[in-house]
């Protein structure tokens, strides 16, 4: 297919009844369509959860504010956290890996296409179930309500005595359902990477994106399932009169904490690894250099996968573990910084001496490097148990993990959107709007989350409904809230850019960035079968070999 024969999806649907188009999307088992479904679904939820964040920030803008009631405030931070992790970050990242992994390893689809569709619909209905709680949370008791026990639902708060009605059950069952979806897609990605690679693509020649998604999926298998198990225990306690977390009958509330964080902390790495993957594809292309230290990058990713499994209890230093446990988890938490540091140096090494092109994806990647470094450093600060005793459960922690999730994960994601949008739609995103989006978002992000560290240091607890004036938190909270709205404005520009470029963007062609991985070898958007002939590769940069037959990479590998 030549460039001018590229069909824009919008053009394809013209003239067909919308029911037939809808039917095609609902019943699809094509990994690209499922990937797009995941991403669109996550974008929908990011708007919802973003609005919840804005409600929180308006409430905290001034002391003694009563924008919402305390009950609504509790629901907002619970739903914001749960939605952002399980129904925004997870689906959007799984969506990207669905779309990109088969293309990058030269496969025609995932290993189990129907399982893939099943996983998506599980995740989708999980999200709907969570939000149905607004209507059905109290069942027959009257007014509905959403879960309000925080996104980690500590026992005994989540037990029947303190959380009557069904609000917590919607939370529990939504996460069980979407958890099965995540496990399904993890199984799929692993089987795809191990069994579907095109001829010549040894593991040592795989794009780093495929490697990192392999590690992420392997982690998902043993990270999501402990949460699922703990959720079942919670259901047994709530509905069958069990005593797992019932301290009155000898049960332990601390056990729930362990189970939750055995999931909860590795989950952060599950989310950040695919973002490392985006950065590892974007930085080489826009530095015009091959990835520096590829084998070390792979080794560091696997090391992160292993070490991050043994750091969970650093969320629990204030619970009162013994000093051996405290020391162990402090040391492992600091140790996970080593492979992460290796990665940052490798990205810098890739940029070093390169002809850097400051296109929008690269801008986001560079901002990611700075912000992720700072997020990592505050993480190391809190890895020191005594320091954590002082700051745990304060806004310092909130600032730290938002620095990771927004400054790291979201920035990498925005970069990925700008980088792969031409492949998915066949049109470029607008550069000017992209720059506006980037600079406004950087401004809003730093206003919001740099400043947020300070009220934390001054003692402002997280999840607090309101506060007294004159503690030195007032102005800081106002600045944080203004930063939140600046970010919302930037995201609005991004959404406008996404929609406008779909209809009016410049046609992209197959390979707008002059990149080197296999997804750019096929047309944009790719045909249903991806590749007319299954490609054969001889190096890590197959398209470089194709474009430079006089000096192919394969000569040096």
């Amino acid at each position: 297919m030549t460039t001018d024969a590229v069909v824009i999806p919008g053009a394809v649907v013209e003239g067909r009844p919308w029911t037939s188009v809808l039917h095609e999307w609902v019943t699809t088992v094509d990994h690209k369509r499922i990937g797009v479904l995941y991403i669109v679904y996550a974008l929908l939820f990011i708007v919802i959860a973003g609005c919840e964040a804005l409600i929180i920030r308006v409430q905290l803008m001034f002391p003694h504010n009563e924008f919402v009631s305390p009950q609504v405030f509790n629901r907002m931070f619970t739903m914001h956290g749960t939605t952002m992790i399980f129904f925004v970050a997870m689906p959007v990242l799984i969506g990207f890996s669905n779309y990109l992994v088969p293309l990058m390893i030269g496969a025609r689809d995932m290993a189990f296409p129907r399982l893939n569709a099943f996983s998506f619909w599980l995740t989708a209905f999980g999200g709907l179930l969570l939000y149905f709680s607004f209507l059905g949370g109290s069942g027959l008791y009257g007014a509905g309500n959403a879960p309000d026990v925080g996104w980690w639902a500590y026992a005994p708060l989540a037990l029947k005595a303190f959380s009557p009605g069904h609000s917590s059950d919607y939370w529990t069952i939504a996460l069980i359902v979407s958890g099965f979806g995540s496990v399904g897609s993890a199984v799929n990605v692993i089987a795809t990477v191990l069994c579907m690679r095109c001829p010549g693509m040894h593991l040592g020649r795989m794009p780093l994106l495929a490697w990192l998604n392999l590690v992420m999926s392997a982690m998902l298998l043993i990270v999501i399932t402990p949460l699922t198990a703990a959720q079942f225990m919670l259901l047994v306690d709530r509905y069958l009169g069990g005593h797992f977390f019932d301290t009155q009958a000898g049960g332990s509330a601390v056990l729930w904490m362990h189970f939750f964080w055995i999931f909860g902390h590795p989950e952060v790495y599950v989310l950040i690894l695919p973002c490392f993957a985006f950065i590892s594809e974007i930085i080489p292309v826009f530095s015009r250099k091959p990835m520096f230290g590829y084998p070390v990058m792979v080794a560091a990713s696997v090391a992160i996968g292993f070490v991050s499994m043994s750091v969970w209890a650093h969320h629990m230093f204030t619970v009162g573990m013994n000093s051996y446990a405290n020391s162990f988890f402090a040391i492992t938490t600091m140790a996970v910084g080593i492979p992460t540091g290796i990665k940052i140096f490798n990205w810098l090494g890739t940029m070093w001496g390169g002809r850097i092109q400051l296109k929008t994806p690269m801008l986001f990647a560079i901002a990611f490097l700075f912000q992720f470094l700072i997020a990592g450093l505050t993480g190391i600060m809190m890895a020191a148990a005594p320091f954590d005793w002082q700051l745990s459960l304060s806004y310092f922690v909130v600032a730290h993990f938002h620095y990771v999730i927004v400054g790291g994960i979201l920035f990498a994601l925005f970069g990925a959107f700008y980088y792969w949008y031409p492949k998915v739609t066949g049109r470029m995103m607008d550069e000017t709007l992209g720059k506006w989006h980037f600079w406004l978002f950087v401004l809003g992000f730093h206003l919001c989350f740099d400043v947020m560290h300070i009220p934390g240091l001054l003692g402002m607890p997280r999840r607090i409904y309101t506060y007294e004036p004159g503690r030195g938190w007032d102005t800081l909270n106002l600045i944080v809230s203004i930063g939140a709205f600046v970010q919302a404005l930037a995201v609005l520009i991004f959404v406008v850019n996404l929609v406008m470029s779909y209809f009016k963007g410049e046609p992209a062609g197959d390979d707008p960035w002059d990149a080197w991985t296999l997804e750019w070898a096929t047309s944009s958007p790719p045909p249903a079968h991806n590749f007319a002939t299954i490609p054969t590769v001889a190096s890590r940069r197959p398209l470089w070999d194709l474009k430079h037959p006089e000096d192919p990479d394969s000569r040096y590998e």
Partner: protein
Amino acid sequence: MSAIAIPATEMPAEWRLPYRGTIGMACLIIAEAAIFTIFVVAYLFYVGKSLSGPTPRGVLETPIFFTVCLLSSSLTIHLASKALERGARGAFVFLWLSTIVLGGAFLFGTGQEWHRLIHEHGLTISTNLFGTTYYSLVGLHAFHVIVGLTLMAIVALFAIVGYVGRDHAPRIGALSLYWHFVDIVWVVVFVVVYVIGR
């Protein structure tokens, strides 16, 4: 640029990747193992912490016979899939049905034990911590036995009608992997509940 982008450079002499069914099942087993680990940890953590009776020492009896049934079903399913690889369909059907019978016997044993515990000793999932952890862990395992038996019954139906042939050997192999896992989990559950737990 053409969609047929990559010119066939020298084709690797042999390009063989593992069977996706085996890898998929292995991944599922890893995920399931994590679920069981959490339940086993909870069981061990709560051993002897019940505030009231009945206690494991007082009411549990070691189910030796049914354990032997379940473990020997691992052998029969292994022999069954080997028979299918050879194309010996008659032997396959016989061994496959024996696996189902042995698994069914085990499930009967679990049911019998639960019946005895509930009716003779009044132990339910809400009685005490022992009840909660015991029924959850053993029940989770029994649930996996039921899933395995259901899948095997479907295969048995197809096999009797004559649809299962040598071509299906890799898939049968993946299913037997799952059954081996169910058996291995029982070894762990057995040790935890009937040996350490008492």
